[in-house]
């Protein structure tokens, strides 16, 4: 059997792993931004 015969599947699996991790990391960053904005708005509202 040619050892590299199914390399497309190997690359696809590795790409999927990194895509899932990157999407999750991005969701954490966007949630952090949203919470920062909410905290700022709440502080502004409480000062009024």
């Amino acid at each position, binding site marked *: 059997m040619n050892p590299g015969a199914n390399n497309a*599947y190997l690359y696809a699996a590795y790409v999927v*792993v990194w895509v*899932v991790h990157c999407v999750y990391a991005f969701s954490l960053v966007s949630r952090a931004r949203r*919470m920062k904005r909410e905290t700022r708005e709440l502080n502004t509202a409480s000062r009024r």
Partner: protein
Amino acid sequence: MKILFNVCLVLTLLLLGYGFCQAMYIAPTEATMGDVQRIFYYHLPSAWVAFLLFFVNFLASVWYLVRRNVGADALALASAEVGVSFCTIVLITGPIWARPIWGIWWTWDARLTSTLVLWLIYVSYLVLRHYASGGQVPVLAAALGIFGFVDVPIVYMAIRWFRTQHPQPVIGGGQGSGLDPTMWHAVLWNLAAFAMLALMFVWVRYRQAIVEHNLEEAHAQASLDYETEGAQ
């Protein structure tokens, strides 16, 4: 704390890089499957890390039910969310590996089906946390986390209890099973790398869950103050 976080982040990136080199270049090519077997070095550590995170969710859920501690609830939420992302990787990389080796993407055997059920249980946990409202949501989620964890040993034992399409255990599978020592290095380095990555994700998500809780309380207090002022 920020310095410790940055040190852990750099360590995680180094481990992920080294784990990748081990899996792709250093580990020997498997004799029958060829290079596609290297999917194993991401598939197996992801599964173990997912199991570990669901165990953390189980412990935190018990802790929450006993003590009603906000930190325990936040840890349960963080570990379930990160566990689902690792379990998603297991469920995607498995069929990608199965297609060239078995000739099929999926089969309803005990290991694969119980893993899908595990993923669905924790997705329903997250859906409950996200869409339900009210003070009893953390209690219901903790109960789901405790009973949901029952599926983890079933997933682990499925290939020992039933005849499955999924291969018999390579690790702890008795006589004739086992891995080449150089393959072990790739497994353990990637396990360490993914465990560190999971720790970083849980760390960030845990802190966010605490802030979310505080924000909810502040919003509730603000609306209460507003209503009191309106009544006067």
